[in-house]
Each structure stands twice: as structure tokens, then as C-alpha cells.
């Protein structure tokens, strides 16, 4: 199971990296979102996927899944959401101001050469 999930995380990272390397701003932002998905899956996987009850004491189970990585991922989800939404609006604004969403055209003017 862990190996399968590791491979999945790897595929998500691959897809995200490929998107981030493209020229189009929206694809880059989608890429960052995919990478954060990959990171969350990786976090969960690395903590171990041993079966047990959900971390709710009311279930009175003998074993529970590890609650700590879940708390970490929850925090990470919220932060990546905040960053992603900021990126989206930033990309939108950049498009409105410059009229392009091609990052290769978005270069500083006071370059060295």
C-alpha cells in the first residue's frame, strides 16, 4: 500500500512539476496546486498507512490511525489553499496589468544586458 501511495505521490509531483515548467501562468498555478496534493499524500504515506479506526475516541476501537499527520495535513491544506487563491488573484491581476499570461514575456526591463 505504502509503495503504491508513494508512486501516486511521485506521479502527482511529476505532473505538478511538468505544469510548473510551462510558460502559461494558469498552468503554473495549477501545477503548484497539484504539487501540494502530492505533498499531502506523501505526508500521509510516510506516517504509515496501518489500518485502524478513525481517530475518534467515541468509537472505542483497539487501534486508531495516527492523528498527528492528519493534523499536519489539515494545516497544510488550509495554507496551500490560502497561497493558491492568492496566486490565482495575482495571476489574474498580472494579466490585467500586462495583457499577457506568458511568463517569458514577463521580464524585468532593467536587465543587465
Amino acid at each position: 500500500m505504502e509503495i503504491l501511495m508513494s508512486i501516486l505521490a511521485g506521479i502527482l509531483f511529476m505532473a505538478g512539476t511538468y505544469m510548473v515548467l510551462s510558460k502559461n501562468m494558469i498552468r503554473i498555478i495549477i501545477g503548484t496546486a497539484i504539487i501540494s496534493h502530492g505533498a499531502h499524500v506523501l505526508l500521509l504515506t510516510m506516517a504509515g498507512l496501518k489500518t485502524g479506526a478513525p481517530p475518534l475516541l467515541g468509537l472505542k476501537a483497539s487501534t486508531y490511525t495516527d492523528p498527528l499527520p492528519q493534523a499536519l495535513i489539515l494545516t497544510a491544506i488550509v495554507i496551500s489553499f490560502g497561497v493558491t487563491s492568492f496566486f490565482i488573484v495575482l495571476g489574474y491581476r498580472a494579466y490585467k496589468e500586462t495583457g499577457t499570461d506568458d511568463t517569458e514575456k514577463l521580464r524585468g526591463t532593467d536587465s543587465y544586458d
Partner: protein
Amino acid sequence: MLTALHFAIIAPFIAAVFVPFLYKKFSYIHTGWFVLAVPTLLFLYFLQYLPITANKQTVTAVADWVPSLGIHFTAHVDGLGLLFALLITGIGMLVVLYSIYYLSKEKEALYNFYTFLLMFMGAMLGVVLSDNLIVLYTFWEITSLSSFLLISYWYEREKSRYGALKSMLITVMGGFAMLVGFVMLYSMTGTFSIQEIIASANDITSHNLFIPAMLVILLGAFTKSAQFPFHIWLPDAMEAPTPVSAYLHSATMVKAGIYLVARLSPVFAISGEWLWLVAGFGLTTLFWGSFSAVRQTDLKGILAFSTVSQLGMILSMLGVGAAAIHFDSMEDNLYVGATTAALFHLINHATFKGSLFMMVGIVDHETGTRDIRRLGGLMTVMPITFTIAVIGSFSMAGLPPFNGFLSKEMFFTAMVDITSFHLFNIDNIGIVFPVVAWIASIFTFIYSMMLVFKTFTGKMQPEKLDTKPHEAPFGMLLSPIVLISLVIVFGFFPNILSYSVIEPAMASILPSLLGEGEQFYVDIYFWHGWTIELFMTMGVIGIGTLLYLSLRKWVAMYQVFPDSLTLNHVYDQTVVGVERMSSRLTGSYMTGFIRDYLLYIFSFFAAALVFVLFNKNAFSIQADLAPISVYEVILAIVLVSTAFVVMFTKSRLKAIIGLGVLGYTIALFFVIFRAPDLALTQLIIETVSVALFLLCFYHLPHISKELEKVRFRLGNLIISIAVGVTVTLIGITANSSRLFESISGFFPEASYDEAGGKNMVNVILVDFRGFDTLLEILVLGIAAIGIYTMIKLRLAGRNEL
């Protein structure tokens, strides 16, 4: 504890603080008069040490600076240090006096001048009187710095700035190398104290770092003392005001390197390499300096190369003097004579070169030019200046009865003696030493004669001069007169220096030769009999006169060397070339495209991590993996196929929907892996994100209609696959090597008992690890405010950017 000696060293720095105030407050008095008190008092103060050092006693005073690192401000007065301290304060006194008449009170920024000059004086005193290598290095760099400031004193002139930068780059380069050498010395001996290092010198000669330390320290000394090929900064430093040239670039700073060589001779002179390097570089510099001086047309240019040449001469004598440690016995004192000559010439050079610079400054001041092609016939209008020039130049050329004659004779003696030296088969090539020295002396004779006769004899050319030449005011003549009198006094009565100054300094340079209560035999006198040195001097005078008279016929040979072969050209090309190369290098990888930078980052990430994983052999898959069920396989297939769709779709809408599908699939994974809170949050957030994406990019007319062209790039794909593989490998290894159990056993027990909650994840979020949540709320708040301002704020001044 700071003692009076410490205060004597830092007194110039303290005085420098007050210079601007005095300048402002007493603007009707030339600031130099106040400054003059500092070197005068210091000179008198240091005079009182003469009897102490003459009795072979030293004075040491320690003040802690960074005691935990073994760095103490240790002031140490011995013969060598005192000789330099007297030179620094004595010449400093005369230079300040001269500058009072040289620099105009109305036109010049005197507060700058005297502040820098005092800084320099204090730093020089610190260099020669410090026993701690780090303190010495500190003062050493302050001399470089204040020299830089003084050279660029007329900073509105481009040549001043060029010269200052050049001297800064070269001397600081050497200074830094020297620091490396000091640290090597420390690691060999465990102390920064020079005296302690000298005491343990015999133990470190076979150490691996001994030769490297010697080389880098010599590099520092050679750059500071303008030795070939690092002499190129000195002629360009002549853009400084003449008092500065007289003080720094003839009498004091350029002798800092010589001081260092002399000071560390007891440590390094045991090795033969030291002798060869010091004497070899000295002789090369001696020859090249005197050879180049003849082609100069600027008086200060001649003096600059002459300084280079004379410094080389002193250094070569110090190198030869090192042979004494190997071969001398107290009876014959064969090679010790070279050290005597070096010290004697050091003093002589300070006197005549200082006065010559001042003489040139007077000529410049009174005629408006220093170009020997425009000067001539000044003998009758400036008789006193002429007298100074004659005595100074004749002494420099080594003519009797001046002090330069004595030191030149001793120099020839040393060079002839070295031919009888049997180390390293010197019989064959040792003859080079006296021959080179002799040829260099001929050139010295020629440029010395040029200095006098081209300036003061011949026809006066008033039409080429800016002002009508006349004799300088007496105040300006006073300092060179004092120096030139010393030239004569030391010439006729050299032995007033012998046992008071020179012999104690020799004891510092060659301490291992002296037994208890012994002293070197120093006796300098004119008549040795018909020795080979006398014939050499006669040859110098004879051939020098002939060559000088036929100067016009052979001076064209200097044009044989093209400019592209000069050292200055090499320096300029290096500076320009390094700038161009670094700019090209930076331009080659800082392309300005984000994609390129991301490529570097991702490639490094993949390469470094995969290397480490395989290098550490991190794979050993353990058996206790969770089982795979059919649901997970289905979800995995959905996830992978969606990921590929997102990657390769041409439609932006499909990519956004695909991202939503990915998010929901992951929410389902969270369900399977028994994380209800995660699944909830993931579902909601994914919905909101996709809505945001659609809002911003689908409902906006311009963007949405434009179909993007996604080009397939193999390079991107390879890098992405590498990153994906790396992450997979990390995930697998994380499971294969668990170093210790997790703390999750704590939460089921503590959640209810200690925090009163049954949902463990929520208890962790708000109770056990509440700080995370607090700051995560802050992140959301900042994002919200950021989005709001981005949408709302429109800066009016945008067009100005």
C-alpha cells in the same frame, strides 16, 4: 591594561577625531600646525627608548583585546620596531610641516587630509610596534585603507581614483594572503605572538604548512613594498599630493613589507627558499625599477620607480643577510654585513627620498609642471632647491661623500660576498648577484643625474611654464633642508647610528646569532682600501656618465617593447577581463526566465537526493506494509489518468476540471485512510479552489477564449519524471527505515483525559498544537487581505515607474 606605550600608538587616531573640530573652530590657523604636535611629541617619546634598546632590552606591554582567541594588543619595542617608529614619527613630523606650506588653507579640504594622514601614522606605528599578528594585520589594513584615501585625495580627478583603486586592489590582495599566512603560523605554533613564534621557530621548519605560510606572507610583504611584479601600483599612486608621496610612498608604508620581512626573518630565514625568494625578488625589482625609471618623463614617475628599485635593493640585502644564520660565525661576520647594509640604507633612503619628493613638490608648486621636457635651467632661480636636489640625487646615485655612497658600497660588498656562498651550488649562478646589482646601479646613476640636470640646468623655457618660477618660501624648504642635512651628517658620521639604532635592530633580525652579552660589530667608514667595491663604484660612475651623455641615442630602445607587454597592460586587461567574464557568466545562467531557474532547482533537487539515497543505500523494504484493496487500485487509476489529462490537455478548462477531479480523488483517499476531518476539508477547499479558478479564468472574456498553445517539451518531461521518481523513492525509503516509534500512542490516551475531547485531530489542532492553528489563521487572513488589496488598490503613480 593600556599603558602609555599603547596610547602612543593610538594617539594619532585620537588626534584624528579632533581634526575636523579644530578645522572648523580655528579656521584662521592652518590645521597642520595642530597636527604637527602629534608626531613631534611621539618622536620625542620614542627617543627615550633608544638607550633601552641599545642595551638589548625590550619593552612589552599587553592589553587584552580578544583574550579568548589569543588576540592581545601587545606593544613590543625592540631595536627594529624602534627604528621604524622613529622613522615614522620623524619623517611624519617633517612631512606635516612641509604640507602646511604645500597645501592651501583656502582651497583644500584640510580636515580630510590630516585625518587620513593621522590615521595612517597611527596604523604604521601599530604595524611596527605590535607583537600580535592579528593586531599587526589590523593595522596593516588600516594603512592600505588610509593610503587609498590619501591617493584619492583629489577625488574629482579620474587618475587619482584609478591609482587609488589600483593600489587598494593590489595591497589588499597581498594583505589578505598575509592573513592566511598568519593563520597558518598560528596553527603551527598555537600563538599569535611574534616573539613566541620566533622562540618556537626551530620546531616548525619541517611542518607541512611552513613553506605555504612563507609564500603567502611574502606575497603580502611584496605587494605592500611594491616588489616586481606588484610594483605597478606605486607609480600610479603618485597622483596623491606630494607630501603623501614623500611620506607613504617613499619613507614609510612601502617599508612595511620590508619591516615584515625583517621581523619574520628569525622564523623563516632558516630555510633556503626564503633567501632565494627575498634576494631574488629584491634584485629583480632593483633592476627593473631602475631600468624603468630612466624612461619616465615625470619627476614623480622617476622617483616612484626609483623607490621601487631602492626597496628591491634593501630587500635583496635582507635576503642575503639571511645567509648569516646558516654560515656565519661571530668571528668573520661575513653575511651579517648585508643586514647592516639593509638597515643603513633603509634609513638613508628615507632621508634622501623624502627630501627629493619634497624638492619635486616645490618645483611643481613653483613652476606648475613636473614634466622634465618642459623644465630646465631652474638652477639660478631656485638655488636652495637645486642644492637639495643635487645632494639628494648624488646620495641616491651612491656618490661620495654622501650616505648613499656608504650604503651602496656595503651593498656591493654583500653582493660580492654572496658569490662565496656554497649553498645550492651558488658558485655557478652566484655571479649573477653582483652583476645585476652593478648594472642596476648604473641605471640608478643615470636617472639620478636626469633628476638634477634635466630640471635645473640647460635652458629655461618660460613659455612652457604656467607661472614664473621663483624660490619657494622658507617654510616649505625647511623640511627638505633638515632631511638633506641628515644625508650629509649620516654621510660623514655614519657611526652615530651604528650602535644606537642599527645594531639593536640587527639583534631583532638575527637573534639566534647573538650569545649572552654579545653584540654585532657595526662600523661604517669611508675608506676600505682599494677593494673591488670601490672599483665597481668607479665603473658605475664612468659608464653611467657616458650613458647619460649619450642618452638621446639609446633612449629609443625603450620603444622596442610594445605597450601590450607591459605589466600595467596586463593589470588593466585582467581587471577588465574579470569584469567581462563574470558578467558573461552571470548572463549565461541568469536568463530572466522563471522556467530556467526552476529547471536548475528541480534538477539539483532530483540529482542531489537520488545521489544521497543511493550513496547511503537507503532501500530495505520492510514487510509490514498495509494491504492493498480494490478501492484503492480504482482510485489510483483515476488519479493517474486525471494527472495525465491535466498534463497534456490543450484546453485550460479541462485542466481546471482535472485539478478538481484530483482533489476529490484525494478526498476519497482520505476517506479510505480513515481521516474524516481531512476528507471534509479537502472536499470543501477543492470546491472553493475550482470555483475560484473558474471565476478568474473562465468567466473572464480575454483569457478564456484564447486557446493556449501547450508545446510538448521533452526536457521538461524528463525533469518532471526525475522529480516524480525522487519523491517516490523518498516515500519508499521513509517506510523502509523507521528509526523510532511515533508519539501517536500519546494522543488516544491524553485526548480525553487531558484535553476533554474525543476527536483527536481536532484536539491536536486547537489544544496540543494550537500555535500552528493560530498562525495558519494568520496565513489565511494575510491571503485575504492581500487579495483584497490586489483587487482594490490602484496606484496612481504607476506610470512614473
